[in-house]
């Protein structure tokens, strides 16, 4: 039974990774029509360097992801601290309000943003994308930081206060250093959420300002070229790296105790 279970898990991994590996391999194949046999080349990656549209949308993606990570982490951490440490009437309602951005299909959230931003004159473009991405990332940050906060006993701050710390000093000298791994994890998470976000970006970009996933989508709709494989490979490996770093930092009960 155990051997069967391991074999089954292997099959699941093949199912999950095979198409991705095939896609990546095709980015190194010489034929522009994906014809075999396989001839290794890096010319599609070289070609990327000349594709100014892809490059500028890639830069846009990274810039927006960075801004999203910073803003969502600061705001979300503040909210997580308030929700986790303070007596608030209607706390469960506030926690419930974090769910819609995660649970409602992005198609609906994205089109709603489009309608609202159009109607109020906020419009589309970079600022609209940042508005949308930060809103999507905040609930994740609150959840990640809130979970980390639960592992830090509240009486540590009380101990600091009994020794002469004001609440603000107690937070910065005791809770924040202990919370740092969670906050860093949340920031990476927010970065990844923004970097991979397609649906909302799709509705809020303008022809002059797009992100990489939006650019890839329109390229796919025009027709497949190995250049898409190349840029997809870069994007995929990039976000995998971010998530692996995140997994190391946010490992439950991780290195915090051993420090």
């Amino acid at each position: 039974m155990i051997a069967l279970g391991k074999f089954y898990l292997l099959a699941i991994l093949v199912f999950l990774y095979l198409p991705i590996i095939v896609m990546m391999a095709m980015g190194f194949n010489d034929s522009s029509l994906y014809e075999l046999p396989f001839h290794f080349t890096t010319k599609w990656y070289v070609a990327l360097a000349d594709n100014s549209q892809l490059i500028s949308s890639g830069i846009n993606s990274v810039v927006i992801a960075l801004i999203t990570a910073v803003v969502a982490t600061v705001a979300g951490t503040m909210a997580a601290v308030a929700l986790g440490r303070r007596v608030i009437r209607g706390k469960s309602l506030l926690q419930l309000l974090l769910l819609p951005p995660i649970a409602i299909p992005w198609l609906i959230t994205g089109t709603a943003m489009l309608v609202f931003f159009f109607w109020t004159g906020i419009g589309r473009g970079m600022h609209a994308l940042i508005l949308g991405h930060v809103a999507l990332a905040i609930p994740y940050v609150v959840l990640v930081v809130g979970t980390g906060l639960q592992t830090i006993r509240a009486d540590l701050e009380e101990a600091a206060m009994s020794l002469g710390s004001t609440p603000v000093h107690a937070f910065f000298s005791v809770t924040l250093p202990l919370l740092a791994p969670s906050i860093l994890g949340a920031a990476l998470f927010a970065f990844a959420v923004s970097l991979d976000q397609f649906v909302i970006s799709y509705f809020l970009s303008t022809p002059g300002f797009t992100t990489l996933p939006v650019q890839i989508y329109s390229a796919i709709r025009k027709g497949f070229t190995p250049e898409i494989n190349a840029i997809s490979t870069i994007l995929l490996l990039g976000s995998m790296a971010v998530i692996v770093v995140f997994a190391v930092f946010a490992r439950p009960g991780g290195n915090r105790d051993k420090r």
Partner: protein
Amino acid sequence: MPADIPVASTGTPSGVPARRGIPGSVATIALLLPSYAWLLLAVFLPLCTMFVFSFMNATPMGKTPIVFTLKHYQAFYTQPYLVKIAWDSLLMGFWATLSCAILGFFAALALARATTGRVRETLLILILLPFWTNGLVRVFSWTMVLREGGFLDMLLHSVLPDAGSIGFLYTRPAIVLGLVHGYLPYMILTCYIALVTIDDSILEAAESLGARWWTILGKILVPLALPGLTTGAVLTFVPVIGAFMEPRILGGRVGVTMGTVIEDQFTQAFNWPLGAALSFTMLAVVLAIFATFSGVLRRNSGAAA
């Protein structure tokens, strides 16, 4: 009192203000305000606005007077082809969710029962890793496998060189396959969380009472995994029926779903009120499903406790 006091007298803390800080409620509101104001501006107000839009006669442009109407909510009567599309979308969601549930349950079971320690940890990370990578790119990956002359055909032709093409890109099964690929990690995770807590002794007790493996599966493992299965099903079904990028890329011309119809209203037809009404109809269906399942879930967890 002994003369040997161990520490020198230090008095009260110096430089510490002997007053209370800013009132607690003000601080709490200040901490919460950035996040919730942001969510209000970027999520809740937009949803409300779209709800209002769904009752408008047409997308408000220039000086055209705004007329309110219910006609977009009657679209399913007046445009019967939408009923067919909605049914197809629900069916697509059903097949994708069912496939995820079956594949995911057994993967979670294998993970919980056939692996331990570091191997299990690594496998879990490997399974979840694709979930946090770009969904668009993963969908695109399947076109490389499923297209005529793609990887699947290559495999076939290496065995049977003269066979035709078995690539099924631009069909409904292709869409379902892409969706399953996208949401399977979620289902594995929720089932795994439910299954990993099951004690060995429960299964041993069942075996000692003469239960065969199918009895253990049906009477113990599945019921205990039900909360995980339900959560996973909801988390899969909801985004799947709102999908538009997967049907467009993997379904081509046959990939018409509620998702693509709604997208069209916003990007092609410019009929925002209809798109909004269809979105809210879909949201209502989603909420109804949520409500039904949360009821089932509560009853089940209540019975288990």
